[in-house]
């Protein structure tokens, strides 16, 4: 299945793009997706420091993935 991963802030700078398509095996987990992206781009953040959003809603890391999913790995926020 194909999913789209979006990046913000330092993750965007490190990835060098604001989003990318990623091909994953059916049934792959969000953790596996982050592990793959993190290895490829050399992200500094362990998964435990990130929140994850699926289709514009926060989800837990054990939430399932689906074809066409829009995924965002959120580093710690600093608004205000």
């Amino acid at each position: 299945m194909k999913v789209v991963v979006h990046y913000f802030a330092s993750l965007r700078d490190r990835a060098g793009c604001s989003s990318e398509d990623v091909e994953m095996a059916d049934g792959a987990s969000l953790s596996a997706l982050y592990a793959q992206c993190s290895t490829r781009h050399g992200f500094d953040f362990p998964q435990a420091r990130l929140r994850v959003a699926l289709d514009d809603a926060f989800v837990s890391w054990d939430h399932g993935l689906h074809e066409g999913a829009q995924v965002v790995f959120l580093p710690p926020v600093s608004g205000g």
Partner: protein
Amino acid sequence: MPDFAISESPIDPALLRQAMQSPQCGAFVAFEGWVRDNHLGKSVLALDYQVYRELALGEGERIMHEACARFTIVDARAVHRVGSLALGDLAVWVGVSAGHRDAAFSACRWIIDEIKARVPIWKREHYADGVSEWLHP
């Protein structure tokens, strides 16, 4: 009506305040976050804010509604600026109206704390030494 907004252009606190006036309210508290010229001892020249807009609007709206449920207030509104900001610019505004000041202060403080903790907005500081850095506290 509680409301949370994201703004690419300067925030006008006078206009926001005026829209919240109501004769049933005895108290109004506003918080403003300004771009400060220093951070942890480093001289700051400017800021960028980046936003994950769809989720920020949803999460911001949830915070405003939770505030109305938690505190005895009449109205609560907030606006967060994004994009490039200069020193002294208004980065975030939170206004709360209530019958009495206790609830207005508590709710206003709670809202800005929740915004900073939960809303997907990120700040990049540009320092006088030429370095710039995303803050991920």
